[in-house]
């Protein structure tokens, strides 16, 4: 084999750390999810499918499941639509485009926990700047208790996350746009293609690789959402904004370790069941273009 002289041991440090600190807990987690491991028990014993039976009868988990999916779907769609829109605008010959790109990416470098606290102030029912602004322009009837009203709480978290991540998608789409030759665009507009047609048939298909990266990352990361939900609503009001990781944290803090691990495994299954087919679909689409 051509490369077989390259020393295998170069891969060992990475493999060792990854196997020990990532794969091992994942695998033993699989075992723990079939045990009654909890804070009060002296020994950990196997209890078969008990955790899973309990888990599927738990309405709170079903709510977390539903919310995680809604959150992930909404963030993935809007992050991509808005990110692509921004990228198209900032790919034009605007004077301030570098400055603007810098601004839009800025939230991405801030801790989600700090962003959560900032938006808790922004959403404050009486003093928050959103309701203040609505009141001052005579739209006071639209003012809401954004985080404590079950109708709006999840929506408010989605908006906050979009504020944070849209700039990231923008950068990846901008990257894709750099690879599209100017000649192609010019010759198509010579042929009389309108902006929309040009976007639909030339620009968008050539962004296939950026779309794959963006959709996949948005989906995976949004299914793992935790800090922001914890700080903004902590799963409330009631359980209307509960997601997997807030539920896991709750089960962990009440000492139900085996059960919490089973919930973690359900998240694993969910991410894999959705992530892998989407990845394969997007990759196939890339090749077809």
């Amino acid at each position, binding site marked *: *084999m051509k*490369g*077989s*002289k*390259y020393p*295998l041991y*170069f*891969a060992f*440090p*990475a*493999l060792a*750390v*990854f196997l*020990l*600190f*990532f*794969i091992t*807990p*994942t695998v*033993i987690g699989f075992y*723990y999810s079939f045990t009654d491991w909890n804070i009060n028990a002296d020994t950990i014993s196997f209890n078969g499918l008990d955790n899973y039976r309990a888990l599927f009868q738990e309405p709170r988990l079903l709510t977390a499941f539903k919310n995680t999916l809604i959150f992930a779907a909404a963030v993935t769609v809007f992050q991509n639509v808005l990110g692509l829109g*921004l990228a198209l*605008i900032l790919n034009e010959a*605007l004077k*301030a485009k570098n400055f603007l790109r*810098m*601004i*839009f*990416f*800025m*939230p991405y*470098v*801030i*801790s*989600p*926990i700090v*962003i959560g*606290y*900032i938006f808790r*102030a922004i959403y404050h029912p009486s*003093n928050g*700047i959103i309701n203040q602004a609505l009141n001052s322009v005579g739209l006071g009837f639209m003012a809401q208790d954004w985080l404590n009203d079950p109708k709006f709480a999840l929506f408010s978290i989605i908006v906050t996350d979009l*504020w944070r991540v849209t700039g990231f998608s923008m950068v990846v789409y*901008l*990257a894709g746009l*750099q690879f599209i030759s100017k000649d192609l665009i010019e010759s198509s507009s010579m042929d009389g293609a309108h902006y929309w047609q040009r976007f639909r048939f030339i620009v968008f298909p050539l962004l296939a690789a*950026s779309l794959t990266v963006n959709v996949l990352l948005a989906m*995976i990361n949004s*299914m*793992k959402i*935790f*800090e922001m939900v914890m700080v903004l609503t902590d799963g409330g009001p009631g359980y209307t904004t509960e997601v997997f990781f807030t539920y896991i944290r709750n089960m*962990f803090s009440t000492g139900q*370790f085996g059960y919490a*691990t089973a919930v*973690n495994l359900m998240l694993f299954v969910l*991410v*894999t069941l959705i*992530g*892998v087919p989407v990845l394969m679909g997007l990759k196939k689409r890339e090749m077809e273009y």
Partner: protein
Amino acid sequence: MQTEKRSRLIVLEIVAFALAILILIPFFMILVNSFKDIRESALFGLGLPSAWKLSNYRDVFEQANILRGFKNSVMISASVVVCVNLFASMAAFVIQRRDDKFLRGAFYMFIVGLIVPVSIVPTIKLMSDLHIKGTYFSLVMYYTAVLLPFAIFMLVGFMKSIPRELDEAALMEGSSYFRLYVQMILPLLITVLVTVTIVVLVSVWNDFFGPFYLMTDSTKWTLVLQVFNFVTLYSTNWGVVFAFMVMVVAPVLIIYLFLQRFIIDGLTAGSLKG
């Protein structure tokens, strides 16, 4: 035609600036409120403080052990940056070049790690079984394990664009594989390594999840965990809380403003090669 094009650009510029203001307002809000007194800051307004209170910043220094948190964050982030860059570049080098069954399997395993959520409860158990729970080492290893997949994914993608002929020439001249890696490959990987460094720094510096679960000893808390704890304790005085936030956000933003060229270019170059 020309004027039509120019007016279109002006409209786009206005739209873009309007959106940029939406991004900037929250930053502005914490900044002005960090100078307000207890009553005024609780109103979360965008107006300038009626009296500028610098004492909020002094209070943070006095109450929050912010320097200790800063030191912990710097130390942990720096260690993870070194481990991830070193281990990932070594692995990516042979994964891409050897391309045998074993390493292809290893590569897929890393890719799975890119998707799979961390199993946090068993991780805590593992750390305590290994008697390293609550140490800096455990947190550095946790982050390294979590961030290696991303780094390897980026670096293997980039390795493909470095011609093998280069290796052959170097080996022909009697260079060892180790020298080939250090003197030829590493310098060529530098743009991706800069991107990896920035992504690792941002992820570790801003992370709450890791230290929340793995660090019980408050003397080893990172800045972000301190913010969380501080808000829980002092949320009655938002001026001080916002001052703390400004102090946590400022270093990241300053680094970002200096490096943003590399970040945006690096993501541009790296993200689409894999």
